[in-house]
């Protein structure tokens, strides 16, 4: 018979570990349970379970703050105004907040926690942001590296957005990618087609989300989107319009222009300057030609900066920045809507400013 002595070391270590585990569980029970607390958002009050971040808690209450990094304090999109119930600025937020924001009590919702009754203020329009489940209905190549995705909304079945706004697309883990990422894409469809979301996406080299959308996402798959976000949309004025885009930057411009009424187009006489390298980078030409035929006040001007052999091109040539002046004779009457790569965008803003366009009337998406 085996003597009990053999088990003493194991038994004593096990009992030591067990008693410590009990202590930890007790501590967890008394320390980590914040109970139910009241979180006030603008003028609404929610009863929530304490202990999580404001971002996570609001998500549970179906309020979706913009966030690209998923709560790792790197994107600084989820800023809220903390009214009461939060302590000092945390070291994780400090680098992402300006002095002005600190003095206004602006905080990162992904860092501050709901521990007692507290209140935050968020922009009113964020209440209308929803999380959508959508099914990919069709996908087609527009150019060799831009695809046009059409999603049918399943639940909720309708989206209410202003033409020009964007959604966040969630790319699930796949292959070697072990976590979900969120990326922003402008909607390219008409705002009155409320059960459909259209996106134009250009493949980013080694991009996590675009690689997923190009190689893994198939017609019939269900995806998750949140939105609408952004303050890039048509301003209601009588000024003339110039729209400038390159590549997949056509998306929000297409949404804006296609949503304008015939009367508006006659009055504001929009010009759409579209920059591309060569013929093979142009797309939807027939759609724009049709649009031009229907609205005599509108002009679509593609410009090629470098032609390839056999391009046979009679339209504008040169960089888009060289073409602007020809179509914007006097900047003071114009409002500009831009979308494209950051470098092009900055250059266009400079050119427009020199042409006399008031900087407050130059609109572009800030998510670049």
């Amino acid at each position, binding site marked *: 018979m085996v003597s009990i002595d053999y088990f003493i070391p194991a038994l004593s270590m096990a009992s030591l570990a067990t008693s410590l*585990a009990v202590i930890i569980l007790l*501590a*967890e029970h008394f*320390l980590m349970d914040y109970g139910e607390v009241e979180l006030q958002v603008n003028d609404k009050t929610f009863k929530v379970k304490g202990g999580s971040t404001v971002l996570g808690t609001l998500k549970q209450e179906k309020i979706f703050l913009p966030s690209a990094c998923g709560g790792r304090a790197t994107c600084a999109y989820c800023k809220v105004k903390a009214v009461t119930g939060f302590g*000092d600025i945390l070291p994780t937020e400090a680098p992402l907040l300006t002095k002005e924001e600190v003095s206004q009590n602006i905080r990162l919702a992904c860092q501050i926690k709901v521990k007692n009754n507290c209140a935050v203020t968020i922009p009113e329009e964020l209440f209308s942001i929803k999380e959508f489940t959508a099914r990919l209905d069709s996908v087609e190549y527009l150019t060799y590296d831009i695809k046009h995705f059409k999603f049918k909304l399943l639940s909720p079945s309708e989206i209410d957005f202003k033409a020009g706004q964007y959604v966040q697309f969630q790319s699930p883990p796949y292959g070697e990618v072990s976590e979900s990422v969120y990326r922003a894409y402008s909607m390219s469809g008409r705002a009155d087609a409320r059960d459909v979301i259209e996106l134009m996406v250009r493949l980013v080299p080694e991009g996590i989300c675009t690689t997923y959308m190009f190689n893994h996402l198939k017609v019939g798959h269900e995806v998750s989107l949140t939105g609408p976000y952004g303050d890039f949309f048509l301003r209601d004025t009588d000024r003339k319009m110039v729209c400038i885009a390159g590549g997949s930057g056509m998306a929000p411009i297409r949404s804006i222009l296609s949503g304008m009424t015939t009367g508006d187009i006659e009055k504001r006489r929009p010009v759409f300057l579209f920059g591309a390298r060569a013929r093979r980078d142009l797309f939807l030409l027939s759609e724009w030609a049709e649009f031009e035929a229907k609205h005599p006040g509108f002009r679509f001007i593609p410009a090629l900066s470098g032609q390839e052999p056999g391009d046979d091109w009679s339209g504008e040539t040169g960089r888009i920045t060289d073409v602007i002046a020809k179509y914007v004779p006097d900047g003071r009457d114009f409002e500009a809507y831009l979308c494209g790569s950051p470098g092009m965008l900055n250059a266009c803003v400079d050119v427009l400013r020199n042409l006399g366009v008031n900087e407050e009337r130059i609109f572009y998406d800030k998510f670049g």
Partner: protein
Amino acid sequence: MQEVGAFVIFFASIFTSNILLTNFLGMCSYLSVSREIRTAWGLGIAVVFVMTITSVANYFVYYYMLVPLQLEYLEYIAFIIVIAALVQVVEMIIERTSDRLYASLGIFLPLITVNCAVLGAALFLIIRKYDFYQSLAYGAGSGIGWMLAIMALAGIRAKMARRSKVIPALEGPGIVLIVTGIIALGFIGFSGIVQIN
């Protein structure tokens, strides 16, 4: 059994036998969390707390469990388990009471578990055969000594960041180790006051 009072041990472990400056234990967090006085203070308090409690707890585990069962050879495992569990509890307390401290300690809080100073203090009090009060004094004193050292360094580093032009080759850990050496030399000056071991 040493013939020194608990009170003497308390002061000796802070000044003359400072666990960091004489035994050079607990260096990793000392080097990395000493950029800001505020964080150094936070981690220091956490270490004082953990060291005091674990010294007492380990004293009981050793003399009332391991010795009677003749399991002294398991002391390392037992001490580590006790330390790990208590650090968990401390982590929860900090998360509850100070968001700022919790965020700035970040990964270093769980790392107190493997802070050699904490295990070192537990082992020293066994080797030196301290009784209960001596162990309590030694644990608390070592913690306070460690905190003192890291805060002194943090103060110097904060001042250096503003005033001094450190040559690139010595930036970061290099200059910190030199400063530490000088602080340690300074602490030798205390050795006339009290002396243990």
